[in-house]
């Protein structure tokens, strides 16, 4: 059996990659995708834990998470489209969507 730690490390790596992306990427779509990565990192944890504890809850949680993620991305993309319509940009950088500050 594969040790639990491996799954956890994989999850952690995925989580870290996602977090890095969220914090650095200037394209909003990529940021949304990075968030998906992070969610999936959690999913891996759940599945792994669910398997090691003989418990169904982990998998249920994963299903829920996937659903939520889908909804979030759907809304997120819609919002981005809206922003693009309004601002003609989806860049998150200085010259992009940073009009509200201080």
């Amino acid at each position: 059996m594969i040790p639990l730690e491996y799954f956890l490390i994989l999850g952690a790596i995925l989580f870290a990659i996602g977090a890095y992306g969220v914090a650095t990427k200037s394209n909003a779509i990529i940021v949304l995708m990075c968030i998906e990565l992070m969610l999936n990192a959690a999913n891996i944890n759940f599945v792994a834990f669910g398997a090691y504890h003989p418990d169904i809850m982990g998998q249920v949680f994963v299903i829920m998470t996937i659903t939520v993620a889908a909804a979030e991305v759907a809304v997120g993309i819609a919002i981005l489209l809206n922003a693009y319509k309004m601002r003609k940009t989806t860049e998150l950088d200085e010259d992009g969507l940073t009009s509200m500050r201080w």
Partner: protein
Amino acid sequence: MFIEYTWLVPLIPMLCFLIVGLLGRKTPEKGGYIAIAGALLSFIISALIAYEYLTGDAYPEPVTSQIAWFAIGDFEINLGYYVDGLTCMMMLFSSFISTLIFIYSIGYMHAEGARKTRYYAEVSLFLTGMLGLIVSSNFLEMFIFWEVMGLCSYLLIGFWSFRHNDGDAASANAASAAKKAFLVTRMGDVCLMAGLFILLGEFHSLDYTELFDPANIANADSTMITLGMLLVFGGVIGKSAQFPLHDWLPDAMAGPTTVSSLIHAATMVKAGVYLVARGYPLFIQDPEVMLFVGIIGGVTAFFAATMALNNYNIKKVLAFSTVSQLGYMILALGAGGYLVALGMDMGGAEGTALIAAGTAGFTAGCFHMMNHAFFKALLFMCSGSVIHSVGTEDMRLMGGLGKHMKITSITMLLGSLSIAGFPLFSGFWSKDLVLDIALEAGDQTIWFTVLWLLAVITAFMTAFYMFRMWFMTFMGEEGANTQHCHGESPKTMTAPLVILSVFAVLSGFLIMFGLDGMVSFEVTDTAFIVGGGHAGGMVHYFEHLFTNPYTYLTIVLALLGIGIAYLMYAKKTVDPGRFNKHGESGLYKVLANRWYFPEFYNWVSWKFGYGVAKGVNYVDRQVIDGTVNGLSAAVVGGGDTISKMQTGNVHDYTAVILLGVSVLAALFVVIAMILGGM
């Protein structure tokens, strides 16, 4: 019968004050007559009281009665009156002289118009203070009237502190003189207050009857009494213008001359002397205190006289003379008290003898106080008459006035002779008694011999400066302002002069007709008794003084002083400039600058008053308020700074969140480690 109504004595002037103050504008002479009536009524009642008391059965036991006023903790404070020989004497001459001066004011203040209301109201209030002080039955009550007088003195010195007829400079001068008078005496008052704290702490009462009970005194802590009485004497120094707080009195001459005459010569400044006399039973508990009192008195007498020598302001000469004479009184009380105190310490027959000798000092001091009241009031009123007539106070601008103002010149001559100690004039008797007691105390300690010497020199100086003044004013060629002289003053002014001059000449003889018994001081095992002593009688005093060789010394010195003054200022055969390098000598300058006391006062008040205040204000604005403002600026600035972290860039938000998570996780673990959970 009358004595139960002693409280009326101060109350009547009080009512006059209220009536004049509120309604005076509408009455004839703007309230002047009301004030006079009040003073006269007080005098009459005083006379009746005195007569009843002195002839009554109780005499010489003090008659006192009081009502509960309020309580300080467990200590009852009372309001009441206290009548004994000293009270009677003070009451009589105060109200009498006041009446005369009020009458004089009708003439003197004639031109003041609407302001007269204020004048009469304030002098009435002053009279309340003086008479209240005299009849008070406890120290606190006395202190209240003491301060009321201080207030009136302040107000009246500053009577012309705005819209002075002589212009702005004179207004400013009056305002600053008033301020100085109040503050300098306040310094003494604060000491007096501290003294009262100590007495209250020791005796748990401030009633004279309690405080003067030997049994109570024996129970109290003698060191505290010493300290207390020294502090009380601080009040005397302020009020009676003793060295080193004497300097306000010459400045106080900025007020109307009537005020100088009444308050700053005849009555208020006597309050200090009165306080020493009143507090005699406590003062004599410690010889050192009395020695201190004597030294202050003697030094004051000498110093003040020196300053009078070369002053050209007629009123200031008189002011210095007043200070000097007050010094005499204090010296007498101090010297006498010193002997009494020593005697009480010593005990036995020798002690009794010392006590008997010492009590003469009490009598001498009180006696001189009364005589001085008459002749100094007279002198001031005469000077007022002169000023009224020539419109200046500078003696160099006078001269030759004798022809124009006969009554004034003669009455003033009588007054001058009296104060100079010309034989048989009132000042002669009392001054020689003072010198006598000082010399006697000199047997016990060298201090009093020195003081006696100073006093004798002072007697010479007194004669000199008084006649310098008289000659400069009334004799010699006519000065610049003599030409503008209006002639003799009106009747309302000259009549009081004449009456007072009679008293100034003759009041000395009162001591031969029982006054010495009335203001005697006796020490028994169970009580200290004022009044009721053995009256020496005429023969005793003639014998006593004229068999004393030192009496002749003073007479010679006085005549010498008069003679020199005559040569210098009347005949002008001797040029005073020869002795002072025409005003260039060091001593002359020192005297002209009043021994630099005003400068010293200024220096002290600037350094320790305004200087510290500036510092405090700096600390307040910069340090304390600066901290407060700095803190608030820091918060506002911090807000600005932190808000700049809100860059609007969502990357920064996410970065901060991720950083926050890491930091919190670490923090969490650290806390766990600290708390020992890990």
